């Protein structure tokens, strides 16, 4: 039981418990807090994988901006405790079965096929940040510029959608 394995299991347990709590909580704000726990656990897993820049970006963007947006909307819309009707209770059991089947199938396939893919030795010629920025501005410069355009469109769209009606 080496130290990285112990850390992996702790973070994985945190992520799975957060995801289950997202499903089981009644109030949306508690679901949002559980999702934040999942994101912080995933940031820890990225650090364990040596992807430090992605971990920091995950916390800053996902945990510090997107989830804050969710929390704001939940507060502003005064979302209350949600009610379950008979339809959703009916969909619960078969849904759970199908999801377990899906996840189990994916997991089993991957486990069988990646037994041969050992983790590559840590060839850290370039630090994560420098390597990513090299690729981002050389090979992936076109998608990079497109995503900045996408963000601009999203900002305009959000402003237009959330305006008060002019009446």
């Amino acid at each position, binding site marked *: 039981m080496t130290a990285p394995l112990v850390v992996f299991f702790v973070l994985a347990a945190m992520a799975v418990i957060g995801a289950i709590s997202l499903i089981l909580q009644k109030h949306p704000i*508690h679901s949002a*807090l559980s999702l934040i726990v999942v994101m912080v656990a995933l940031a820890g897993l990225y650090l364990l994988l040596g992807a*430090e820049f992605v971990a*920091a970006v995950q*916390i800053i963007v996902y*945990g*510090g901006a997107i989830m804050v947006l969710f929390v704001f909307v939940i*507060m502003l819309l005064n979302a209350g405790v949600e009610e379950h009707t008979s339809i959703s209770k009916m969909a619960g059991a078969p849904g759970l079965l199908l999801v377990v089947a899906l996840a189990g199938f994916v997991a089993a396939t991957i486990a069988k096929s990646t037994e041969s893919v050992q983790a590559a030795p840590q060839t850290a010629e370039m630090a994560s940040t420098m390597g990513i920025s090299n690729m981002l501005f050389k090979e992936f410069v076109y998608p990079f510029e497109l995503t900045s355009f996408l963000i601009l469109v999203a900002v305009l769209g959000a402003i237009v959608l959330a305006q008060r009606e002019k009446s």
Partner: protein
Amino acid sequence: MISFFSNLLSANAELAITVVKIVLLLFIVLTVNAYLTWFERKVVAHIQSRWGPHRVGPHGLLQPLADGVKFLFKEDPTPAGVDKFVYYLAPLLTLTLAMTSIALIPFGPNPIRLFNHDIYLGIAPPDVNIGILALFAITALGVYGVTLAGWSSNNKYSLLGGLRSSAQMISYELAMTMSVVGVLLMAGSFNLKKIIEAQAHHPEWGIFGWNIWPQILGFFCFFVAAIAETNRAPFDLPEAESELTAGFHTEYASFKFAMFFIAEYTSMITVSCLCSILFFGGWLSPFPASWTFTHYFPSAVLIPFGLWVIWDGVRYETLFGRIILPGAGTAIAGLGALFMLWHGGNEFIQGPFWLLSKIFVFLFVYVWMRGTLPRFRYDQLMSYGWKLLLPLSIVNVIITSFVILAKMTWWGAK
């Protein structure tokens, strides 16, 4: 038994050293917080031509102790109808995040060599490659404490105050992060130690090698954005008493309010540390490196200060003051004399001394701004953040990149 423990300790030496450092740093940060409140009350009072706390101990120095005892013994009511889990989580989250950000700051360049282990001054190891990005990540999570506190209090003024305050924090977080990009471009790394070393590139320039001269615009944007981020005057509308009945922490009583309070002062300390490290050379001395006689500067400051404290203490009105103040003064003057005589210790203390002095100067500027500037109105505040600071910080990035490119191609090639 003893050998079992000593074996356990030497096997997990790194862990044990880190735990001791964490406990020590927690203690130091909490004490500095307490005396920062004293410092703030004294300075603001003197700006307003009055005395400030001066009864509780000599010069009011025991006032933080009295405040702490008051916070512990005050009644701690929980309002009806609050969401219990979130209500208790919010101050805890804020305090934890504020304390965690202090762990990433290096306080000195040289390690202490003890029992064959290098003990660095600062909890995080000096090779954290994403030093400043991790600090911004922790600051980004700090928005939740305010938002959740405002929402869970079951009080419309708290909700409004919380939403306003968190909107303010998010807006200024953008400007704060962009204004640091200029420094990062010049240093070429996120690592705080490398940023300071990049400012020591020309050791003969001393103070003129610091990042403040090329990055004056970045420093202005960063400092203003950081003050807004920590919800301090003049950006403290969401928590001002006369506006929204204390905003998001209205419904929080003694100890939970103390947690918000401590978190605010701790983030003030973190911002001062960051300003010193990023723009003012961190632990570098302002004098050129070849002027080795300036290494006696810490002693030259401590000895006269200690002597002045002794002289002020022997004429103090109360007996307690006449005992404590000369004692403290002797300790300070003795420390100064020790550094003058012990060469190795003097060399070691140079870095931390300069960093702590710069942090002290920034804390004074923080308190000075609180005492003198009027508050921003909320719409002025938001337009200032989005329409002035963010474009200015982007302009700073563009200018810095052009100059670096020019250095790499024209001037460097000549």
